[in-house]
């Protein structure tokens, strides 16, 4: 009996060529074939995107007593793509106090996604 094959499509982000990647999977999402890539990096990207897509997130949090009302921050590591919006929503009302230095952790492992939230700009008391 032939296993039923399903195909997922991805756009490669490695370079401007933008290869249209196809990932064929069989039972239990086992990858059986990757097509459409023009280089090794493209093939690896397709597999990673299919198995565990992750994203770095950059956003702002509120700043109290600073020269500006918002502080830019980022995740210290990539988080699962499916949890990005939930993470942003969870941080929506966060306000921290100036001063802040670059790299300072402003929230520890929110939602347990394995990434801290760190400041990306120095902000003195304003």
């Amino acid at each position: 009996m032939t296993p039923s094959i399903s195909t997922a499509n991805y756009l490669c982000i490695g370079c401007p060529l933008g290869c249209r990647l196809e990932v064929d999977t069989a039972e239990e999402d086992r990858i059986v074939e990757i097509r459409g890539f023009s280089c090794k990096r493209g093939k690896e990207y397709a597999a990673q995107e299919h198995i565990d897509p992750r994203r770095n997130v950059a956003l702002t949090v509120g700043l109290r007593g600073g020269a500006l009302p918002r502080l830019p921050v980022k995740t210290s590591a990539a988080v699962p793509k499916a949890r990005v919006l939930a993470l942003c929503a969870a941080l929506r009302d966060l306000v921290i106090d100036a001063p802040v230095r670059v790299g300072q952790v402003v929230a520890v492992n929110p939602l347990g996604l394995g990434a801290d939230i760190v400041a990306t700009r120095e902000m003195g008391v304003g």
Partner: protein
Amino acid sequence: MLCARRSLRSRGLVARPAPVTMPELLDVVIIGGGVVGCAIARELTRYRLRVCLLEKECDVGFGTSKANSGIIHGGHHSDPRSVKGGLEWEGNQLWDALAADLGFGFKRIGELTIALSEADLPVLENLLSRGRAKGVTGLEMWTAEHVRAAEPNLSQDIIAALHAPTTGVVNPYEACFCLAESAVRNGLDLRTETTVLGLSLADGIWAVDTSGGTLHTRFVLNAAGLFSGDIAALAGAPALAIHPRKGEEYLLDKRLQGHITRVIFPCPSPVSKGILVIPTYDGTLMVGPTAHSVEDPLDLTTSAAGSDEVFSSVQRFAPGICPRDVIAQFAGLRAAADGDDFVIGPTSQKGFINIAGIQSPGLTAAPAIALRVVGLLRDEGLGLAPRDDFAPGLPAPVHFMSLSTEAQIELAERDPRYRRMSCRCEFITEGEILDAIGRGAKTLDGIKFRTRAGMGRCQGGFCAARCMELLARELDIPFTDVTKRGGGSWVAIPRLTGVAQEASHD
């Protein structure tokens, strides 16, 4: 979201709030704060009168006047037998004194009406004799060589042109703001964002119902432009049909400054003055306007067809002008009445006077219209006792970049507001923006049309946030309450808070 009228009032910078208790009897209520209404208002404040000007927008001049070509016509274009024909030349001659009093920019740069074929020549001859009959000075036929020497960037196909040195240019909104500011300083009660809801006459007194309360007055002047037909109907005056006629205009990049130095008219057709090249007072070129009737008096849309029409017709005589240089486009609506003439005069409703149908050359004629209306009021029985404390002038605004370096150093030393460049397309300092707010600007457009900040190449991309911060601070309102031009023209909203609405996204 209102544009913070209250806060400005409390600082005594604009009109006082509507009276809530004892109704005071006014002498004149003017409906409509366009250039005509403002010119009349200022003229009336020369006398001991209680005058109120009602404007539905959040600033004067924000209707037809703002989208005007800004030309003070030479005086010879309109038929001398018409009302507008007479007022055109009368008005033209009043602008030097007005500009000198109020300090707004006005330059008589002259105009050329051009002939591209032999068939055009009789039309120019007719314009010339019409102008001479009215007494328009300086009209002269130019040869092709003369045109080429004076305007080398015009088409080589031009065979002759009629030169009118009397034609000038102004910033129509600047003139409007200055007229209104001068009137307010001389006692005018200016009420913006105030809509007229009803008009009734009893015992020789008009009750004017507005969105801000009821006013009582002996005279009502209907200068409501596109809406003057509606106002006439509210007053029970004979029907006045106003037909909006749209004109699209395209403003070109500063790069083309000096490319053409006079207002250029194509040879006029029986129905239109045609599409012009206008070196605006600020030096940038503008091309337009189209002329198409529309139904909706709020339809200020521009169109691809309009743009094509403007550029294809202008390129026939100004080949160096192309759509690539457009930095802004807008449309205005002329308030044309039946018969295409001005409608100025009393009506069967005693004390209700129309000043309607003021299409081109309305801006040119406005100062003359104001004088005529004063005369009409006198004829209708309004006593006109001159005030001895009328102040014709206005404090001159600072134009930082036109100061000498020494004067700039001295000013910045004395006044720290002149140490920051807020608009880097038009070089407008923070001090000039604050001055505009002090003189009544409550919105981004209010600042833009008073200072030019936001009018240049970036169209506000850089300075808008800074202007919003200054407006919020000076008017003491939240940043997100600042509007583009009042009403529902909000610019930004507060960021969303809370987690609740996110569940559906996840």
